């Protein structure tokens, strides 16, 4: 078996042994993942080298496909590709991989890189109509925001069937003669889905908040009474609340707007932390008030960012939420930080 062609960095050239997409034989794809594939997947989850994790676009073979085998269309994001192939054990089919610049199907469909023209061009590039007798393409359902099935039929003569949302349902879908249950057609947002997403959220939030810790450190250089490990823990806890706990507990927190949910948990946390550390005591009240304003605002902001990872928020809704929440977040973060610093310098 030929090694899987991958490409990395800005160099578009396949590293080795790779066949161009118009090669006579489509590269054969294994349905089992190697340790390297798994490690790569894990690194992507934690935001290490997340960009440019892609495979070469083109036509691939799974098993021993012939002119009657189904054609599955997907994106050239390596994780998508791996998820897809490991769910095809025992099947004979073609994989038509579009150039989505290493982005998963759903995102790429939103950007239209997983789109009508890319699909039509790719069909021509691999001369699919000469390889298969039928004129059917199975697309992932989440590719539908980018692809117009009526247009593919009109311009390329292929009829599009939208397969299930999840690759794990593909075999059942194919063996039932392309019948999808309502379940298969619906995007979920389970606890597991949300947990999988949180590492990246956390890493991103931590990167952003390094500047906050930098400011604390600088203030420490000049202050008579430095910020200590308690302040650090309270801030770190807030980031955890906004970037991890709010997403995980999402359906159980009252309210619908993400910012509100984050703010609510952030407020609980800030009240708890300030209470436990005894900062409600007279003389520390300004300081405490600062924290009670700033911390929930930070949690609200981080939670609001999670709208991008959620699977059910509409742009109109997010815009509405932001118009209300963003000014409140900015004001309370600035006022809160100022009070905390003043209270700290005075205390």
């Amino acid at each position: 078996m030929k090694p899987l062609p991958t490409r990395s960095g800005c160099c578009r050239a396949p590293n080795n042994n790779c066949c161009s997409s118009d090669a006579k034989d489509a590269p054969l794809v294994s349905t089992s993942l190697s340790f390297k594939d798994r490690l790569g997947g894990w690194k992507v989850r934690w935001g290490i080298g997340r960009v440019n994790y892609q495979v070469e676009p083109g036509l691939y073979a799974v098993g021993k496909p012939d002119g009657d085998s189904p054609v599955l269309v997907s994106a050239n994001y390596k994780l998508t590709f791996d998820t897809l192939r490991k769910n095809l054990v025992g099947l004979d089919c073609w994989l038509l991989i579009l150039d989505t610049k290493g982005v998963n199907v759903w995102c790429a469909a939103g950007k239209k890189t997983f789109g009508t023209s890319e699909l039509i061009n790719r069909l021509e590039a691999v001369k699919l109509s000469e390889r298969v007798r039928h004129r059917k393409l199975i697309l992932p359902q989440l590719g539908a925001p980018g692809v117009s099935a009526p247009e593919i039929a009109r311009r390329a003569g292929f009829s599009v069937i939208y397969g299930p949302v999840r690759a794990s349902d593909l075999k059942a879908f194919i063996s039932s003669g392309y019948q999808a249950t309502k379940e298969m057609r619906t995007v979920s947002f389970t606890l597991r889905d949300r947990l999988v997403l949180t590492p990246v959220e956390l890493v991103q939030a931590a990167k952003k908040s390094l500047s906050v810790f930098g400011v604390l450190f600088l203030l420490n250089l000049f202050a008579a009474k430095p910020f200590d490990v308690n302040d650090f823990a309270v801030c770190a806890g807030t980031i955890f609340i906004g970037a991890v706990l709010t997403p995980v507990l999402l359906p159980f927190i009252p309210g619908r707007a993400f910012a509100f949910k984050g703010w609510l948990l952030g407020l609980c946390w800030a009240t708890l932390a300030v209470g436990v550390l005894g900062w409600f005591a007279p003389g520390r009240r300004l300081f405490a008030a600062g924290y009670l304003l700033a911390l929930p605002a930070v949690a609200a902001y981080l939670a609001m960012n999670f709208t991008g990872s959620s699977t059910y928020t509409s742009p109109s809704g997010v815009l509405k939420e932001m118009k209300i929440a963003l000014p409140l977040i900015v004001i309370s973060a600035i006022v809160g930080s100022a009070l905390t610093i003043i209270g700290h310098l005075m205390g």
Partner: protein
Amino acid sequence: MKMIYLKNVATLSFLAEKCLGCGRCAEVCPHGVFSLADKKAWVVEKDLCMECGACSLNCPAKAIEVNAGVGCASAIIKGWITGSEPSCDRDSGECC
């Protein structure tokens, strides 16, 4: 558990007169917004719509209109700053 976002914000509009009853909208919608009855589509729950635009793009009769885009706060902020269309990093590892 089916999560519903804000009420009455989705820009989805459906013109029943134009509908051919092909069922494509119900096939592509990731949130079961459309259903088919008596060879006509109907909107089951508009508040479930995330404005992905799949139904509108795939309807052969142009019976559906929606302001499609990404429901992502940081993408919208980035769009404001750079003056470009918001685009997202929505990532569902399970999707194929």
